[in-house]
């Protein structure tokens, strides 16, 4: 095809404890739609944030339109011709569409020879022109907060076009769009392509890649894997590239004797999130939930634990139908949820280990409302020993612990409630390899003691290694179920992507 408009060379980016991008290279030609795909956490979004100046790479070069560039913030990358449409929109909610489109680079004219005055007429004209190009109508004077997701995305696209960009990056643009909106978006992308723009299209939806992309680059665990012409490859080949062939062996799952069915979820429904969910789990079992980001796994677990007030459905534990109206009820019944977002929902990071552990059940740690510090400390010390939390003492602030140890505190906090069913949402996210293995060992040992575990994970090897059975979810529904013996990475990923599998 045409000339190369964008080239990334040997990009390396690390975060504390994680190598997010390792020597990744990528190039984009004029008039091309180039897909980047990979599993959750493969490094797609990080790569794009590096390109757009949100993150600065540790090493490597970025060439835009033939020039070597370093971006300190997104505004700089916009001005050099690279525009990114983020997954979570970066728009200012209380400001109007027009204000958002031109924020930071408003058109102005000199009045009285010296006063720069915003030239609304010119901005309006330009905005109208852009929306005409996009074949969309949006009132320029409405506030962003009144728009729906699809419209917000349209504004993001329009905003990027105000910069005269010739490189556009879409980060999972269809994640929250309806089919009709997706079709509209695709026709826009194709017309932009015809105008000669280079487009980077990040997605994990394979069918979309085959529909509109010219080339596809696969990333896995922050590594560059392959670049192929879409015409010369097929879904199976891409899936194989995405999952790789290696199977790590650090999941010391101990075989446990499974008991009877202890817990059943029936007809769960939450408008817009969940559709008719049914599953059951046996005592001592580890039940996995696979699916892509946004498949509804977290929503399901929150609903089951009384954290989504509008969800409907039945929960049966030990043959007894539970009535759960909030999370306090769920905890009382022995249903405990460990959030995927440790810092926001899981832990109060500025408190100590013991204070976090006692928080959900302060009543049990107090007499006449006065906290029994000794008991608090003793219980915390017990759990620290049991699940090997590495910290000097129980009164050590959680914030000063490593990610792995913080996660262990989360688990200890849940265990202290004496759960019957423990829900672990991404239990090893943001945790280094050693701690990961330790957490897996802990989970395995817990089931040996008769605890039943529901585990969400976006890492397939983890699910395959740990779980007795794996349910696969897509768009709020359960679309497949695999036993430990049958499950393979390919099967699960394919089911998660395409929604067809054996129930």
């Amino acid at each position: 095809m045409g000339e190369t408009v964008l080239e990334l060379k040997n990009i390396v980016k690390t975060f504390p404890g994680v190598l997010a991008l390792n020597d990744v290279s990528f190039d984009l030609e004029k008039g091309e739609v180039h897909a980047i795909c990979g599993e959750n956490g493969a490094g797609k979004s990080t790569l794009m944030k590096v390109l757009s100046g949100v993150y600065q790479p540790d090493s490597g070069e970025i060439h835009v339109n033939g020039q070597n560039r370093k971006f300190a913030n997104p505004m700089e990358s916009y001005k050099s011709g690279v525009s990114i449409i983020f997954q979570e929109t970066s728009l200012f909610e209380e400001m109007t569409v027009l204000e958002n489109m031109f924020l930071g680079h408003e058109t102005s004219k000199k009045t009285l020879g010296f006063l720069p005055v915003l030239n609304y007429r010119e901005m309006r004209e330009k905005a109208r022109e852009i929306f005409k190009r996009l074949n969309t109508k949006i009132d320029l004077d409405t506030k962003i907060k009144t728009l729906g997701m699809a419209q917000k995305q349209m504004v993001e696209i329009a905003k990027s076009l105000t910069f005269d960009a010739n490189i556009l990056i879409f980060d999972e643009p269809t994640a929250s769009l309806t089919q009709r909106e997706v079709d509209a978006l695709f026709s826009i992308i194709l017309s932009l392509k015809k105008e000669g723009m280079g487009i980077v299209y990040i997605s994990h939806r394979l069918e979309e890649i085959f529909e509109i992309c010219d080339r596809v680059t696969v990333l896995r665990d922050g590594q560059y894997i392959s670049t192929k012409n879409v015409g010369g490859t097929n879904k199976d080949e891409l899936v194989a590239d995405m999952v790789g062939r290696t199977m790590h062996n650090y999941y010391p799952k101990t075989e446990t004797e499974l008991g009877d069915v202890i817990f059943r979820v029936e007809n769960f429904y939450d408008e817009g999130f969940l559709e008719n969910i049914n599953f059951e789990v046996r005592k001592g079992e580890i039940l996995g939930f696979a699916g892509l980001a946004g498949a509804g796994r977290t929503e399901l677990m929150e609903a089951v634990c009384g954290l989504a007030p509008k969800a409907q459905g039945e929960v049966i534990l030990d043959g007894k139908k539970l009535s759960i109206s909030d999370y306090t009820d769920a905890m009382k019944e022995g249903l405990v949820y460990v959030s995927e977002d440790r810092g926001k929902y899981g832990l109060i990071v500025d408190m100590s280990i013991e204070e976090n552990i006692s928080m959900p059940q302060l009543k049990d740690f107090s007499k006449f409302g006065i906290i029994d510090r000794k008991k608090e400390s003793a219980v915390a010390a017990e759990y620290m020993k049991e699940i090997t939390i590495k910290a000097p003492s129980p009164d050590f602030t959680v914030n000063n612990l490593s990610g792995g140890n913080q996660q262990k505190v989360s688990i200890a906090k849940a265990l202290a409630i004496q759960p019957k069913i423990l829900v672990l949402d991404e239990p090893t996210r943001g945790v280094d390899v050693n701690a990961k293995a330790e957490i897996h060992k802990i989970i395995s040992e817990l089931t040996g003691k008769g605890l039943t575990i529901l585990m969400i994970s976006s890492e397939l090897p983890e699910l395959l290694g740990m779980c007795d059975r794996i349910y696969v979810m897509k768009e709020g529904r359960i679309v497949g179920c695999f036993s430990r013996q049958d499950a393979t990475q390919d099967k699960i990923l394919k089911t998660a992507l395409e929604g067809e599998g054996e129930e």
Partner: protein
Amino acid sequence: MKTVKKLKFTFNIALLLILIVIFAAISILNPVFLSPEYLLNVVLRNVVELGLISLPMTLIIITGGIDLSVGNIMVLSAMVGAMAAGRMGSVAGVIVTFLVGLACGLFNGIIIAKVKVPAMVTTLASMFLFLGLTRGMTGGDSVYAFPAAEAVGSKLFLGIPVQIFIYMICAVLFYILLAKSTFGRRLFGIGLNSNATKYCGVDIEKMLIRIYALSGLMCALAALIMIGRFSSLRYDAGTNINLKVITIVVLGGTSILGGTGDLKGTILATLIIGVLNSGLTVLNIPIDTQTIVHGTILIISLIAYEIVNRRTSSKRLKEVKTELLKKTG
């Protein structure tokens, strides 16, 4: 909270040192200051009302909230109480005073917790409302003390003003409430991370309503003492109390962003302000000038907190980095 605790420890020591230095300096300049009678009857007695209100204010600020209406709740409850006492006697007066305080506090708390209007806006508006109600009901006149109020405001017990006992009891109770009780622990949780606290099953709305109501009750108590001490009150007597109370709490090391703070700091800050106020009076420094001293002290302490916070956070960053290096290397 280990590092936080260490921080608090040094700050409380610093506050204590400041208190001692100021105290010594004033005593040297004017020995009258040192007489036990002066200390009890003037220095401590004059700061009791501020001290009482700063106790619940500390709790409120720890949750990340604020109450700009405390002084006006105080005067409103004193007014209505005194009117009731005038018609129905002292006991009714006391009951009505507390009821009014409670009602005002509940009013704030419900708007903040249930309607979710920011605390600053709510209490700013209710400040006008309470001030205005007081002014409207009294027609701008003063109201006068009644026997029950005099008993707590201007009587002695064992040679010591009654309100000092009241303050000491309240300070101890609040200290226990904040530092030792489940209630206090949950308050810190709300201030540090209200999401995670909610995910621990804590009813945050109820907690917030309770502390604002408690604040209203303490304002009523302070109101009784104040009207007893001055024997009359004007409707606008409360307005400049609002910011003074917040000054005390912030000077005591409680972060206005919520989550950190303790009552020892607040109590020490109360004493500092008390000693300063009376001390500067003893030294014949005009009462207006004392404000600048308050302001300067507040600014210096704020800058000190900022510097120490920065240092500890950069230290923490270093610690994390070395820990990581150890692991990978």
